[in-house]
């Protein structure tokens, strides 16, 4: 077969182009799953720009999955053998995904790269370890503190709270902040959500948890936990805090605080950032109260993760990305783009977070309480346990059931989960 000149020319040109283009196509594409937007100017975009500048042989491709279906989708991708190379995870998922074998232990990659966990806050170091392995790198961390509306305190003539207060001080303060017009409450003293996130800090304050100390069943029927639930239910009954149905009309309890309908709210950094964006809000933060004068201060530590799914195609390159995200540079981006608290103390106490401009004035409290912070509980049955808890507690929060009755029902209903 004889080829014409034109055909030969095209073939030669194509070969040349393919040779020239080879370095571009040789780049490893890392698929990174997250529920966050990765548009220009976002935190994820900042990570991509900075990482690719240092690693021209690796291209980051984000896959955004809506948060409502994120975990189902990613877990199904892993089970189906087509996992993303890197996945963003909330802290609670480490407890359910590691026992399933859905995540890779990062220890060998860390050893090879000489990566040391010591750079992180001790609480963050503990939070990435589970079942004897290291299964994630910290995306960011957060503790909880009490956010309070200074203007509403001034209106009520109540002094601003100070570190070292107790839960009785808290209750009296919240009670004094309630404002009414006729029978209608216009300002509540405090607002909280009735899912686990909304009250777990109070459990920690009274040295309780959602599961028992052995991890063999519900811990919410134990005396300290019952005290906490009765304390919170009491505030709803007394009208200091809005009932769940009313809270829902603000979207959630943070919405009640943000719209100045609640004077206090236990906040994480994520919600605090939404308050910072509200120019009408004059607010600050203070550590959570202790349960009484003898008890130690406590708060919950929540860490968001980057993890390496089992079966990821480019694990080695993916770990390079993880190491970058957890590095000083990556954690500085975390602080600057307001994702949360950088996991490295030197970065967290610097201009990226603690010394950054804007409210709250005392944002260092988020860091100072890190010492007493207890990690969010991780256990394999958590998804089903929290669903059962919501079912049994709905009527308790609505005031249609006693705490004793609800916690007993939860204990009974969840027994089979722990067998």
């Amino acid at each position, binding site marked *: 077969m004889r080829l014409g000149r034109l055909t030969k020319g095209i073939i030669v040109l194509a070969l040349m182009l393919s040779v020239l283009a080879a370095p571009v196509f040789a780049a490893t594409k890392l698929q990174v799953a997250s529920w966050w937007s990765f548009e220009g100017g976002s935190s994820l975009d900042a990570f991509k720009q900075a990482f690719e500048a240092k690693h021209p042989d690796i291209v980051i491709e984000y896959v955004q999955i809506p948060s409502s279906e994120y975990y*189902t989708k990613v*877990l*199904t991708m*892993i*089970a189906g053998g087509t996992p993303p190379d890197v996945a963003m995870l909330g802290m609670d998922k480490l407890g359910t995904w590691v026992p*399933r*074998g*859905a995540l890779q232990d990062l220890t060998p990659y860390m050893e090879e790269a000489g990566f040391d966990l010591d750079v992180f806050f001790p609480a963050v170091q503990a939070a990435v370890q589970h079942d004897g392995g290291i299964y994630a790198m910290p995306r960011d961390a957060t503790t909880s503190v009490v956010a309070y509306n200074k203007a509403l305190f001034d209106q009520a003539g109540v002094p601003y709270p100070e570190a070292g207060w107790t839960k009785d001080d808290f209750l009296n303060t919240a009670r004094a902040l309630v404002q009414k017009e006729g029978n209608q409450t216009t300002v509540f003293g405090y607002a909280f959500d009735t899912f686990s996130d909304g009250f777990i800090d109070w459990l920690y304050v009274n040295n309780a948890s959602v599961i028992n100390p052995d991890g063999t069943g519900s811990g919410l029927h134990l005396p300290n936990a019952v005290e906490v639930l009765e304390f919170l239910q009491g505030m709803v009954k007394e009208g200091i805090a809005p009932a*769940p*149905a*009313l809270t*829902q*009309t603000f979207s959630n309890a943070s919405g009640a605080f943000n719209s100045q309908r609640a004077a206090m709210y236990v906040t994480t950094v994520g919600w605090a950032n939404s308050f910072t964006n509200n120019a009408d809000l004059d607010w600050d933060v203070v550590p959570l109260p202790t349960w009484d004068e003898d008890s130690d201060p406590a708060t919950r530590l929540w860490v968001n993760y980057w993890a390496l799914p089992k079966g990821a195609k480019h694990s080695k390159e993916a770990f390079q990305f993880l190491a970058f995200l957890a590095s000083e540079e990556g954690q500085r981006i975390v602080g600057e783009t307001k994702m949360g608290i950088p996991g490295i103390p030197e970065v967290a106490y610097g201009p990226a977070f603690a010394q950054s401009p804007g409210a709250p004035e005392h944002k260092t409290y988020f860091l100072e309480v890190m010492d007493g912070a207890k990690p969010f509980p991780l256990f394999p049955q958590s*998804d*089903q346990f929290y*669903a*059962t808890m*919501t*079912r*049994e507690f*709905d*009527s308790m929060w*609505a005031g*249609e059931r006693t705490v004793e009755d609800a916690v007993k029902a939860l204990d009974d*209903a969840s027994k*089979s989960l722990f067998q």
Partner: protein
Amino acid sequence: MTGVSKRKNTIDAWLFLLPNFIGFLVFTVFAIGFSLWISMHRWDLFSSPTFTGLSNFVRLLTNDRDFKRALLNTLYFAVGIVPLGTATSLCLALLANRGLKGMTFFRTVMYLPSVSSTIAVGIVWIWLLDPQFGVVNYALRSIGLASPPNWLGSVLWAKPALILMHIWQYAGYYMIIFLAGLQGVPEQLYEAAVLDGASSWQKFWRITLPLLSPTTFFVIVMKMIGVFNIFEQPFIMTGGGPSGSTETIVYYIYSNAFEWFNMGYASAVAWVLFILVFGVTLIQFKYQGRWVNYE
């Protein structure tokens, strides 16, 4: 046709059928068979399935109060939606059949919700039923009801609220089916009844309803199957709450399969649901002779 061309035609026919047939085998026959097999196993998608015999079925029928609650919730929906929904659609069809001005527009408006996305419709209804700012409670307050229900947040009212929304959403769809049935009723029967001095009620009761019974039967069967499969409305509007009061069987299957990854157990629940729907449909067919008139 010669033997060769006949054989060729047969082969051609099979070749045309093959893509669909393969799809049917893989996505229907295999999927159903696999779900039956997996219902006798414990499987979380990651580890190998562990054979557990009939224990999933025994547990859900004897020792699973969440399944029992989901079953009772589903039956509540069936009792609420099937008769009320059928009656509503029939009333709308009778209205639409009167040939009044603007009926085409009326039919289109009534049919619209059934072709709208349940997610979009659900979100609109969440706002309508909002206890503080919702239109429904605003209307109730304006007629003097001081404390209208917290529709989606109350154990007592969440199911009626979903029933109301479901009936509204599908009323137009079944109205069209009834309308087709109504237009098949011979006009002479009404004329003869008028000559005999029958009232409007007597015409409806003695002519329309009996001659519409095959359509009514079809509507009831379809609605019953639909109600046993209710999922989107509670998923969007209540998340199965409050206190699990709107969790249906399909919602329970979804939670087990895709939230907790108990694939074997979810499959067992799905098979029990299938047997239930099949049984109810069978009973309906068995007793249709007593009230359905095909003449």
